């Protein structure tokens, strides 16, 4: 009380040295300065984003309502491309193939990767060797990958068929038969992607607090139950991210189709992007290609949202 009264009687405490106007101006200068780094850091990104992402995106959507527009002038045709797209048999087949591929590839690669990652996680010995070994497919130069593929799948001299033959089994026609061709492509992508996902999940497993696993051991949970009840739920945010990334990547299946099968046999491996690629470049059917691209984008966005809802929400509840 004394102190308060003493302060109030002191003139230094009573007079403002800045007028309201000065205060306002100083404040806005201060705020402007604070904006400089924001603009400085975000500006280049926003510029690149608009040039390389937003503009092409808007352009794609626009072209999906036109014919031409790449080499020649675009001509507005309204919803024609979209209606052609919806009634295209090959696209339906492509979508089916791609979806089948995505489901099998993600399921197989994630199951294997999680299994191998948890084996590696529980066995520290030789971990580095296996990490490198599994990552190897991503590092091999294309020429060697081609040789390895040839070495494995050649009808007469491939290891797999030689083994089958030795076991008196019928030899496999890897790329000439359905559903073999799609499964061959799945295996190839699994082989290629496995190392990455193993490392990804291993990092995830290693980030689970050791105490949680110990607690579950004390509580009597065996390795399967620990994996199911502790590791997987704890990895859920990571799994969500992985599923979304894998969805986005795998829906773009193209390389192996173009090089190995050209969509065959009998449309057994035609994928959505292969469909788009053919329309866009080989047939110069620009409108249909763009309509399909935008459609694929929408589909992936919807699937991402669904995946998010499915996996993301669950962590809120128990079980």
């Amino acid at each position, binding site marked *: 009380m004394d102190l308060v009264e003493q302060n109030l009687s002191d003139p230094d405490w009573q007079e403002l040295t800045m007028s309201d106007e000065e205060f306002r101006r100083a404040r806005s200068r201060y705020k402007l300065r604070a904006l400089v780094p924001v603009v400085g850091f975000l500006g280049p990104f926003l510029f690149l984003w608009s040039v390389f992402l937003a503009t092409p995106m808007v352009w794609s959507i626009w072209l999906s309502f036109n014919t031409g527009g790449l080499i020649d002038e675009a001509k507005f045709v309204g919803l024609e491309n979209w209606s052609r797209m919806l009634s295209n048999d090959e696209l339906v087949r492509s979508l089916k193939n791609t979806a089948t591929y995505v489901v099998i590839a993600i399921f197989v690669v994630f199951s294997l990767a999680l299994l191998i990652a948890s084996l590696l996680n529980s066995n520290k010995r030789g971990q580095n060797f296996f990490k490198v070994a599994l990552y190897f497919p991503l590092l091999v130069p294309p020429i060697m990958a081609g040789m390895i*593929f040839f070495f494995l799948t050649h009808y007469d001299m491939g290891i797999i068929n030689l083994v089958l033959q030795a076991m008196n089994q019928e030899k496999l026609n890897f790329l000439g038969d359905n559903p073999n061709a799609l499964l061959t492509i799945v295996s190839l992508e699994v082989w290629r992607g496995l190392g990455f996902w193993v490392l990804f999940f291993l990092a995830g497993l290693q980030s689970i607090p050791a105490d949680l696993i110990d607690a579950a051991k004390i509580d009597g949970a065996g390795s399967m139950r620990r994996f199911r009840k502790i590791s997987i739920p704890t990895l859920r945010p990571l799994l969500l991210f992985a599923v979304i990334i894998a969805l986005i990547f795998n829906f773009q299946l193209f390389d192996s189709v173009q090089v190995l099968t050209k969509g065959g046999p009998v449309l057994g491996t035609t994928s959505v992007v292969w469909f788009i690629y053919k329309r866009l*470049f080989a047939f110069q059917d620009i409108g249909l290609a763009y309509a399909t691209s935008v459609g694929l984008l929408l589909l992936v966005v919807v699937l991402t949202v669904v995946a998010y809802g499915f996996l993301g929400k669950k962590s809120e509840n128990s079980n």
Partner: protein
Amino acid sequence: MFLAVLGATALVVGACGGGGSTTPDTQAVVADTQAPVTEDTVAALPFEGVTLTFGKAPHGEDEKANWGEWLPEFEAQTGIKVELTQVPWDQLEALYTANFASDTPYDVTYQTSTHLTLFGERGTFEDLTARINGADFAGDLPNFPAGVLGASTYNNKLYGLPFVVGTTAMFANLDMLKSAGVEVPTSDVELVAAAKAIIADQKAKGNKGVLGFYTPRTVADYGWYFTLQDVHNRGGDFLSADGKTALMDSKEVKESAQFAADMICKDKVQPANGLYNREAAIELFKAGKLAFIQDEPSRVKTFEEAVLPFAWDIYMPVGHNGKATQFATTGHWAISAKSKNADAAWELVKFLSSAAFNSTYNQRYGFVPARLDADASGGNEKLARNASWVAVWDGLKTSPKVSQLLDEYAKALEAATSCKTSVDDAFASAQKGATEALAQG
């Protein structure tokens, strides 16, 4: 991406959009002008200082090196500098699309029937009709057969000057024929019988796994390129003469596909689709495991260089009822409509399509020259015979829709030869797709 190499075993690719890919090389190869041009001759050259860009998909791994030898001659004559870009076959359409959409497309490109009007009708290429009728070409024009020029003309526009026409040849392992005591077949029926006889004979002699016949029937290996001539042998086509009606479900198309399917599914003289791709089958032939293979004549050179351990020769692919024709695509030189040096580009096109250059080029790559006064055999009797087949050559008429129609045809052929889809179903679907494609503006 890394898979690109899987197809890269193809050494030689089809004249006309066929074949696999070769090692991607999109970097410009500048054929150095170290020509002995002296200072005083420079002033006399009309296009001194002009640089032309030139895009082409390669017909062989050595093509780049060869251009390094071929182009300096032209550069010395004209003072034009030529920058060559090799466009890989498997990215050709994408790279050309991007290039033609830009402000500085290649001045001169090599275009096959499937792409000539596809791009041309979108305003990409100059109509060369006026130029070929010009005085400077008057001596050359009569050497181009009317049929060849006709196949390359669309709506009275000629978007590229024909350079080569494609043919296919049937390679036969003569040792096997002799061993089985059969003559070289001249008809489809004889071919099946000969193949069966050879397989049986080889089997009896302890050579298991010898195959009778191979030619690609799949989309991936451009089955259409090797099968359409049989449609023509039967007097049919997949498209009406006016180019307006799809004939995918016509009798001739279906009978031809049925024959191809029977060879695989019923007669079993050809391995099932997918067991061996085109290159694997070539290796089989080279290894003496295959009696007949129908492929491009460009293989003649490679087989000769490889020195096959048996006697072999090339023959006209067999026809129905003995009627045998050649049917394929044409390769052209096209000039960009946006070219800023169109006249210089025309000089290059005249050089490239000259009888002399045509002979040089095709003595190496084994295609049939599109002009009659070129000799592509170089004294090679087999290639000379190949060239003579131009007499029964029938060209795939170029059109903006031809790629898409061929895709429909190829898919149906693949389905029909899969032994799982009936020819009727396969080509009914192709007819539907082709009709839709034609209806679409």
